């Protein structure tokens, strides 16, 4: 029975993986159908995620956390808006709420990133005073000066240096990393396809 419990999910996963692979290569309709099913399951998982979020914050709300209360109210309000949109009592309620609340908040946080990066760079220099940190600071300074308004003579020099660093060192290093990641991806995918890695069966 235990063997069956392990082998059925493995046979399903390996079978679906191979069918999708062959489908994407030779029978696109089959590959598309299987990836659509996967997308549908992912959408259902999103629903599970929202229920998890609600359950965690309901628990915290009962312990007196006001922010969790705010989150629970927000989820319920958006759900109510989605219902009124669906029954055509309102029009575009969810997207309006998203545009007025979620999008500006995301944008505000994203704009703070530059300060976080500045602090992190400073902290790196404090933590590791070695050649690599100096190289980081010098590179960051050159790149910043290369994209700043400077007198023509200086902007030409820094602009060229900045382009050289980006194209040669950053571009080269990035391609190396991406090739490594692709190879790692292939290795993990092969392990899943052959049933050697079973993230679905603990």
């Amino acid at each position: 029975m235990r063997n069956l419990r392990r082998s059925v999910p493995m046979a399903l996963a390996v079978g679906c993986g191979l069918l999708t692979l062959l489908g994407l290569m030779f029978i696109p309709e089959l590959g598309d159908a299987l990836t659509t099913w996967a997308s549908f399951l992912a959408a259902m998982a999103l629903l599970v995620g929202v229920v998890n979020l609600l359950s965690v914050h309901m628990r915290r709300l009962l312990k007196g956390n006001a922010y969790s209360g705010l989150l629970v109210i927000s989820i319920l309000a958006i759900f109510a808006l989605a219902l009124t949109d669906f029954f055509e009592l309102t029009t575009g309620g969810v997207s309006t709420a998203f545009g007025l609340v979620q999008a500006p908040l995301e944008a505000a946080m994203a704009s703070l990133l530059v300060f976080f990066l500045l602090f992190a760079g400073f902290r790196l220099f404090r933590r590791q005073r070695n050649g690599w940190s100096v190289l980081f600071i010098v590179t960051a300074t050159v790149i910043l000066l290369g994209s700043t308004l400077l007198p023509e003579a200086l902007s030409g020099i820094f602009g060229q240096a900045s382009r050289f660093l980006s194209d040669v060192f950053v571009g080269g290093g990035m391609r190396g990393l991406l090739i490594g990641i692709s190879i790692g991806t292939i290795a993990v995918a092969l392990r899943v396809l052959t049933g050697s890695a079973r993230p679905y069966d603990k």
Partner: protein
Amino acid sequence: MDLFTSAPILILIIVCVGLLYWLSYRVRSGRGVNLRPLNGYIALKAQRAKSVETGRGVHFSVGRANLSGSSSPTSIAALSALDYIAADACASDVPPLTTTGDGTLLLAAQDSLRAAYNVAGRQHDYSPRIAQYLAAENQPMTFAAGTSDIVNRGEVGSNLMIGRFGAELAIVTESAERGDMEQVIGSDDPTAMALAVLATDKVLLGEEVFASGAYLHGEPVQLASIQLQDILRVLAIAGILLATLFYLVVG
């Protein structure tokens, strides 16, 4: 995809699978694999031990890449690291507070934690709320805000993040830094990799993330997979050199 494109890919896959089985056989028959020490995995092992000793849990984020997309191998590698951390931590009742930005990963992380509790014989202590979903995949800053809150609450002693992240990583690592926490960061995203290096020297960059199984669990097929990666890397380097030579000579 036409037959001329598909056939070579299929042949390459079959050759790679054959190589993987042959290398696994070699490892099983006693041929050892030398793994170079990686700071990130050394720190991860230390954090697991520290968490059990001090009774203070860790925050473990498995990222935001779903299991049905092209980044799923990154998430599978992250789940493998979570299995490792959860094994001892759940037995000692200091489960890793796990966060994710994807529903499929939430289910997989819950499964991983449940399995760790089962192995420890503490099924009744498991709660699905140990793994938390924070925000949808396309809302990175919301995910960062939620994760920062968890890191700042004072319930965890260290911050471990392995998986797919983006620029939002800077916000979370800053929060952990303010809490004076040890951090281990691993990602396959170029932006996140650069930010991780700024935050800590215990990093797993790019392909190192995919080696989590071999470094943390050491099963023969996982070690063989590392050897396969090395072979493919040598082939890629040879291909690049030959193409460059060809370009320089022929033009």
